[in-house]
């Protein structure tokens, strides 16, 4: 099996590469690329994302044919794709970080700033928080409810359809921290930085 981590200059993806490489040891080939042909022919895609919603969308659009290729892969052909952090947020129709920016529009919804309740909650939401699993999920196979995952973000994905939410976390309000629809997966937390339990999420994705 070939798994591609999409390298579209979206900031720091070293940790994503290191953790996937660790979990894949000997069983799965991990490729880090932005080459359209390689992405088309792989079995699974990881879409990381760091920095702002706008900068990530802009970077995706800079690579000719990439957005269409990802859409064909994940939406038309329903092959497994995992978005991490802003990688997940970009599934939305629209994001409001930096400037109003059109997202990929794969899952209806928007990405807005977390309500800090007049400074009561510090932003970014940084650190370990418990996830509340909302539905049976392939990504959370053998992962206990209320497991700790590592978060770093100031914006949250608010989908229109709650049935795609696979986990939430509490910070100021109930924040969507994982989504799942068919073979489309996303985590707001960073499985690559969430210690052994995070590596288990990655393992679940590789074992799909």
């Amino acid at each position: 099996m070939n798994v591609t981590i999409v390298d579209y200059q979206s900031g720091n993806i070293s940790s994503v590469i290191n953790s996937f490489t660790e979990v894949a040891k000997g069983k799965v080939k991990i490729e880090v690329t932005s080459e359209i042909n390689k992405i088309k022919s792989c079995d699974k895609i990881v879409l990381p994302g760091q920095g702002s919603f706008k900068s990530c969308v802009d970077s995706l659009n800079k690579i000719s044919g990439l957005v269409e290729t990802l859409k064909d892969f994940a939406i038309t052909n329903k092959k497994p794709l995992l978005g991490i952090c802003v990688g997940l947020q970009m599934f939305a129709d629209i994001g409001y970080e930096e400037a109003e920016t059109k997202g990929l529009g794969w899952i209806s919804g928007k990405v807005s700033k977390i309500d800090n309740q007049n400074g009561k909650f510090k932003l970014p939401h940084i650190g370990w928080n418990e996830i509340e699993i909302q539905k049976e999920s392939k990504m959370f196979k053998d992962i206990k409810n209320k497991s700790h995952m590592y978060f770093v973000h100031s914006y949250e994905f608010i989908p229109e359809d709650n049935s795609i939410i696979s986990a939430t976390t509490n910070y100021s309000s109930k924040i969507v921290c994982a989504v799942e629809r068919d073979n489309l997966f996303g985590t707001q937390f960073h499985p690559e930085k969430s210690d052994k339990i995070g590596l288990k999420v990655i393992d679940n994705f590789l074992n799909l």
Partner: protein
Amino acid sequence: MLKNRIIPCLDVKDGRVVKGINFVELKDAGDPVEQAKIYSDGGADEICFLDITASNENRETIIDIVKKTAKECFVPLTVGGGVRTIQNITDLLLAGADKVSINTAAVKNIDLVKESSKKFGSQCIVVAIDAKKVSENKWEVFTHGGRNKTGIDVVDFAKKVEENGAGEILLTSMDKDGTKSGYDVDLLKTITNNTNIPVIASGGVGTLDHLYDGIVKGGASAVLAASIFHYGEFKIKDAKEYLNSKNVSVRL
């Protein structure tokens, strides 16, 4: 609920872990990659490397340590010391750091904070502030590992780094660092009350109760400590169990 983080800090000099007392006398405390792995396996919420000689010597040593550590530890890794340019930040992130802390350069050139947080995202830019008390409830920013006085008020500077995109503040009391007499709680309180980004408490931990004070009395989101962990006095687990027993929420 968001958990309070415990962060062991490894001061690295010439590829070895050292711990100074008031920034000067250095003792040897082992191999940084090995230490980081022990901490990560022991439940550390993040790992912090501070390259304390990077200002004067070449940077390859720390890059190499970061590369090796990032392949073995899957918790966030912050690296600081001698970070002056966007290129320095790029190099550390490519080596596998998740966050980079900027100290002296942030004072000299706030644009570095602004540009780097825009380029890489606020989540990976930590500004490390070294503060020294100058009078009652007043602290001043020092740079160059505590050698240079700047005349800049710490509260003003903390607000300024927040405005310019820093994702976190790593606040070290130079009066307390290495003394094992506890954090400067008043300093912490002042900064956590005047900023809206997470503050990491640093400098002065000698007992587990000091960690409690940093979080509960000082309002810190995370507590950083070096020597109490390095010399085996306490394990990360001891710190977490202690805090948990006092109703401070931690990742167990």
